[in-house]
């Protein structure tokens, strides 16, 4: 159970993606390992509004979304809490986008489609840092 810490508490995840199918895939990858999805948002604005009401250890953030994109949402969340860990999870990830993501303090980048082990590994690694 990679989603549980040594003390048995679960790692808390907020999943931000405009595709309900993608959010389902994130749950399917993480929940069997004990991670808990504490919040879901379908666009950047929803994510920024939801963020202060939940305590997430890691936010998974899609990039291309309606209303507010994931890069702007990541900046807004980092403004609220500069220590918040954020992983960009996107099908579009050319060098320009990745550079932009890094400049906003996004902790790691995971390309879609992702393997469960890949995203789990990245979540655990950024929490250790």
């Amino acid at each position, binding site marked *: 159970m990679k989603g549980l810490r040594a003390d048995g508490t679960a790692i808390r995840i907020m999943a931000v993606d405009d*595709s*309900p*199918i*993608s959010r*389902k*895939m994130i749950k*399917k990858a993480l929940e069997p390992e004990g991670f808990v999805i504490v919040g879901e948002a379908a666009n950047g604005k929803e994510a920024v509004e939801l963020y202060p009401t939940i305590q997430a250890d890691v936010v998974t953030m899609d990039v*291309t979304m*309606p209303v507010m994109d994931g890069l702007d949402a990541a900046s807004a969340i980092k403004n609220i809490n500069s220590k918040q860990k954020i992983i960009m999870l*996107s*099908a*579009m*990830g*050319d*060098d*320009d986008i990745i550079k932009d993501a890094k400049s906003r303090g996004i902790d790691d980048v995971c*390309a*879609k*489609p992702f*393997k469960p082990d890949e995203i789990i590994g990245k979540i655990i690694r950024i929490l250790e840092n």
Partner: protein
Amino acid sequence: MSKDSYLSPFSLATSDVLKEMLDINIDGSETASEGDLFVSQGFIVVVGFTGGWKGRFFLDMSSETAIQMASLLTGDDYDSVGDEDVIMSGAELANIISGNAITDINNSQPGLNIRLTPPSVFAGDGISMFNVRLSSSSALMQTNIGTIKINVAVEGGK
């Protein structure tokens, strides 16, 4: 650039994404040049793109294949192609395939800066798609859940 060089990043992305997300292998693939008319097998997703290349991508399959694909993706069973999950699964797959293809194209040809439009999905019998002054190429991929067809058209692509 030849039409095949527009198609190949999408073909590659399609086989990678099908393998990775659905564990589907392509048993055989052939490419074909098409005119401006494209007849759907019953379920089609359209993703447009602009920037250094202007055009659009189709992901096309039968309704039965679309239903099976959604089941493989979510683990649930569906009776109808009209189910919200089937429609959204098709949209997300096409979005990921075109996102992967465009990422590769943008990275290999810096400055193109191609961006995608949101996907649209159509299902039904006798659907045809038409682009004026835009010829396209298709790749037909045989899989164990049916024939999956992709089609790419780029403005100025010969």
